[in-house]
């Protein structure tokens, strides 16, 4: 099997300015945050993002000018509120948004994965989403005489970024049983390249003990990197919960550009590796807190 193991800089160097990047992310869950920080460190520009529900990662990428458009169903940090940097960028016209409902996004990605020109959905009929987006969404008559559908044009992201529980050095990717959102179930299958960070790199023999947990075969994966706590500050069930303190600090700062710059400098640009990052965000104290899924209130 072909070697896919590399470093964070090496993995992210596979991404080009202008790429459309599918990002695993559900509000406060399971985002490949170490890969996202590396995107910022490498000063990528004019990226498009594909998200089901983007969270803090989107706010960071908006704050640092990495992205200029977003295709997705929502951007929010759930109980930590809206993503203020993203919101401001959209309001100022710096980020264009192609808003899709979940079924329309799933259909666009499903078509991309299966090399179909489109897949139909019956969701979102009657909303403004469809008339807004004639390039990718068209009403289509049912050839069998039933109700019309929304034809959703195939979406093929250039890259998918995901975080996984474990992988081998050949890019076979395993995931523990958890909420399998479409961002992990269909985005990578639609993308041209797949970059994975994993909590741990293990011997292939470990994967063979549970072949049902393998979600992506090595031949589909372009790069894999070992990054413990690579989803911090988002949660990564069952390993660790989201970091409330970190999210609250960001939410408190995110309307203030200076405060934002300081946080980005401190947590994104400052640490030279994951170990330094984890020390910076609280080290063992934080690790113990998120491992116990302790949340304030």
């Amino acid at each position, binding site marked *: 099997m072909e070697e896919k193991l590399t470093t964070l800089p090496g993995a992210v160097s596979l991404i080009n300015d202008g790429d459309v990047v599918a990002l695993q992310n*559900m*509000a*406060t*869950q399971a985002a490949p945050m170490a890969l996202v920080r590396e995107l910022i460190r490498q000063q990528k520009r004019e990226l498009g993002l594909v998200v089901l*529900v983007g969270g803090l990662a989107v706010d960071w990428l908006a704050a640092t000018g990495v992205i200029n458009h977003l295709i*997705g*169903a*929502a*951007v*929010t940090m*759930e*109980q930590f509120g*809206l993503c203020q940097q*993203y*919101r401001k960028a*959209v*309001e*100022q*016209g710096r980020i*264009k*948004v192609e*808003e899709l*409902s*979940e*079924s*329309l996004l*799933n259909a666009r990605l499903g078509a991309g994965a299966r090399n179909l020109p489109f897949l139909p*959905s*019956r*969701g*979102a*009929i*009657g*909303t*403004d*989403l469809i008339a*807004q987006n004639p390039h990718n969404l068209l009403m289509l008559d049912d050839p069998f005489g039933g*109700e*019309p559908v929304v034809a959703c044009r195939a979406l093929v992201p250039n890259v998918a970024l995901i975080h996984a529980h474990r992988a081998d050095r050949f890019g076979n990717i395993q995931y523990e*049983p*958890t*909420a*399998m*959102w*479409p961002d992990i*179930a*269909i985005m990578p299958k639609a993308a041209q390249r797949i970059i994975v960070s994993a909590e741990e790199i293990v011997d292939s023999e470990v994967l063979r003990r549970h072949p049902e947990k393998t979600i992506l075969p090595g031949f589909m994966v372009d790069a894999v990197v070992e990054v413990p706590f690579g989803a911090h500050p988002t*949660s990564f*069930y*069952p390993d660790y*919960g*989201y970091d*409330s303190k970190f999210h609250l600090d960001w939410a408190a700062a995110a309307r203030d550009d200076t405060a934002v710059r300081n946080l980005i400098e401190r947590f994104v640009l400052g640490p030279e590796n994951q170990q330094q990052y984890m020390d910076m965000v609280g080290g063992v104290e934080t690790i113990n807190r998120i491992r116990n*899924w302790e*949340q*304030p*209130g």
Partner: protein
Amino acid sequence: MTTDWRNSPPAENYGVDELMVTALAEYFQDGEQACNGMASFIPVAAFMLARLTHAPELVWIASSVGLEPRPERIPASTLEAPLWRDSIMYLDQYTDFWNFVLNGRWITKFCVGAAQLDQYGNANNSIIGEDYHHPRVRLPGTAGLADMCSIGKDLYYWNPDHSPRSLVEKVDYISGAGYLDGGNTREQLGLGGGPRAVITNLAVMDFHPQSKRMRLQSVHPGVTVEQVQDATGFELLMPGTDVPETRPPSCEQVRLIREIVDPNDMRKRGMN
């Protein structure tokens, strides 16, 4: 867990959050399936309460992930693992949940919060302003709302801040189809289901069967019809008779909410 909730007298002390929970719970019955999404403390409390009282056979799909979970109490997120980790089944979103939802036979009722809701029950969680590409406010986005609104579901809107900002004559952007321009404009697109009720901190509304305009159904105890109308950005239709009072929670319902379902008062986070 059996409690004498049927014979429990009306509570004297309760919050409007608790009344919203009990009002919403009434719509969910045995044999139905309920699911919740993000930041949905009021619906989650309503489902959990319904299962403890009148609807023990209400199926709950927590966070649209976990079937029949048994969280000890409502945690700080209605999307994260503490809510659903102790489940009978984890539903894969792409292959399970969306198949079940789209099928049309299951999960026929959906609870929704919307930044704007108009007199025909159209919902907006996308943008405030005139220009989609330079909005005055970028809202989170439609997520699954646009789907739920167009695939035959009965929709129950909860709104903890009944105001002319949130209940508007016309939404700036339709990110969830209600009755569109009213009358039969929704039916003409072949859409079943639709908005059934709007439960706010002041009142409960439904929709007129023909015109599909929003109609006052009941006002909460202590609230006047005038207060409701003043807080609404369009003219509410009135019911044929006098406007009744929303049934307050019973003592037992309040006890269950406070002691069992939500001792950490997460539901109050849903309130403004």
